[in-house]
């Protein structure tokens, strides 16, 4: 009974094939990076339209630099993929009335939010693990070995970063009627905060986790405060989303 919505989300994910295409999309995004970097000189030579006799010298990136590029790719396009997949959370259920029906059954809003969030968080984590594993595989065979411990921490930080962004999206989606607008607002906030933390000394902000997931591969990092604020933001976002859904304002 308590797990019914959570189980239903997985059933829906299977029926609309979200369970398959999200991990595949994330894996492709991640695996493409080492492959593209490895073949970059050949790609440029064949399609770059350079005059005859041009010499292109591109230093071979280190495996760590390749994995940093993978992390950036996932944080940009990968996050977009995940948020688009969750776009209809709440908005579609508002439209087809199922959210109101769940409320009439006296099901706590917290259970609705946590069940859906739990599903998307696990799906995203699974997809990210597969994506990172495929990136690691191609990096190792095309470039060289790297520090597995650092890569493991990088994956953890990246995963936490995604889950925080997902939590923020859940809050925005609960507040707004449109799922598309909720995705745009979450990505806009992500974009603005990513620029701001580059300019101003805001190393404690949750949005620092993304860059840290790359930096950990090439140097030492201090992730304690961003992790703590991320957990705080996650808790606040999910609590407020539940409060908002406690009584639906639409008749």
């Amino acid at each position, binding site marked *: *009974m308590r797990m019914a919505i959570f189980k239903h989300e997985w059933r829906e994910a299977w029926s609309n094939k979200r369970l398959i295409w999200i991990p595949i999309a994330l894996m492709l995004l991640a695996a493409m990076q080492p492959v593209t970097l490895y073949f970059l000189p050949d790609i440029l030579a064949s399609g770059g339209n350079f005059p005859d006799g041009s010499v292109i010298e591109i230093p071979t990136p280190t495996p760590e630099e390749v994995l940093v590029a993978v992390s950036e790719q996932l944080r940009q396009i990968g996050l977009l993929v995940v948020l688009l997949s969750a776009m209809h959370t709440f908005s579609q259920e508002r439209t087809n009335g199922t959210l109101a029906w769940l409320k009439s059954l006296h099901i706590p809003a917290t259970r609705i939010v946590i069940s859906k969030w739990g599903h998307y968080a696990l799906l995203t984590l699974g997809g990210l693990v597969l994506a990172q594993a495929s990136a690691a595989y191609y990096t190792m065979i095309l470039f060289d070995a790297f520090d597995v411990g650092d890569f493991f921490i990088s994956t953890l930080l990246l995963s936490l970063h995604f889950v925080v962004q997902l939590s923020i999206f859940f809050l925005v989606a609960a507040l707004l009627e449109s799922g598309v607008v909720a995705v745009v607002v979450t990505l806009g906030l992500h974009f603005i905060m990513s620029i701001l933390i580059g300019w101003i000394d805001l190393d404690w902000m949750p949005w620092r986790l993304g860059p840290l997931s790359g930096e950990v591969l090439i140097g030492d990092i201090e992730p304690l405060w961003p992790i703590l604020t991320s957990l705080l933001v996650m808790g606040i976002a999910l609590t407020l989303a539940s409060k908002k859904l406690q009584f639906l304002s639409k*008749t």
Partner: protein
Amino acid sequence: MKVNHLTKRFGSFTALEDVSFTLRPGCTSLLGENGAGKTTLLNLLARVTAPTAGDIDGHESIRIGYLPQRPALYPSLTPVETLQYAADLTGTKQVDPVKLLQRVGLEPVDRPASNLSGGMRQRLGIAQALVHDPELLLLDEPVSALDPRGRREVLDLLSDLKRERMILYSTHVLPDAEEASDWVMLLRQGKLLMEGTVTDLLGEKSSIELRLFDDPTTEKDWENLSGVKQVTRSGTTWRFETVDRHLSERAILNRVLELGVSIQSLHVGHPSLESLFLEVNA
């Protein structure tokens, strides 16, 4: 179930104002024009929205089955899966989805809800609302998408269900409300205008139409009749609007004898919820 001074505002708009009533066992129909506040009241009773003011006694503990105006169905689930999910959500173990579907006149088709017709969706919505054997069944226009046969079946189902629970349903089909309801509530502009049994509401009103052979009478001849509110003439027919049917019938017949005229036809028109509805909303 007692509803006390329920008010719901959306910003400056008052959808429902100071509505109080007691919901009784049996079937209650909720009437009113579009925008009268019927759906708002049902949403408040279904716990979908919170009231701005007022409360409902025993609201937290009661099992509620709710059919919104557009049935709340998951597009990808088949009818059987829909009912199984509803049973999972409510922790209902002893439910046979196929039997329940048959009870609302639906076959367990292997098609997702998104591919069902409007009538089938409505029936599935009713079955979904019944899964956990609710004590209060709230139905927002349950027959609006049904053909005449479907409407008849749902009315029969309501008559069957009302023996075991409270039912409150909104409708625009007034003859249905007259037939199926034990109690009627009439909302107008967010206020509860009147409530009672159909007989209570319609009272002793009627209209009597009288045609005479070689009618020599004038309006003066039909003045001061007991129980008659208004007399009008339309062609060769006299029409009497009455407030007391029995008194007025006797008075009219006595006057006919006094005048010594012969009756060609006499028709007593019984009042309907429809005429009451139109009169109230005029």
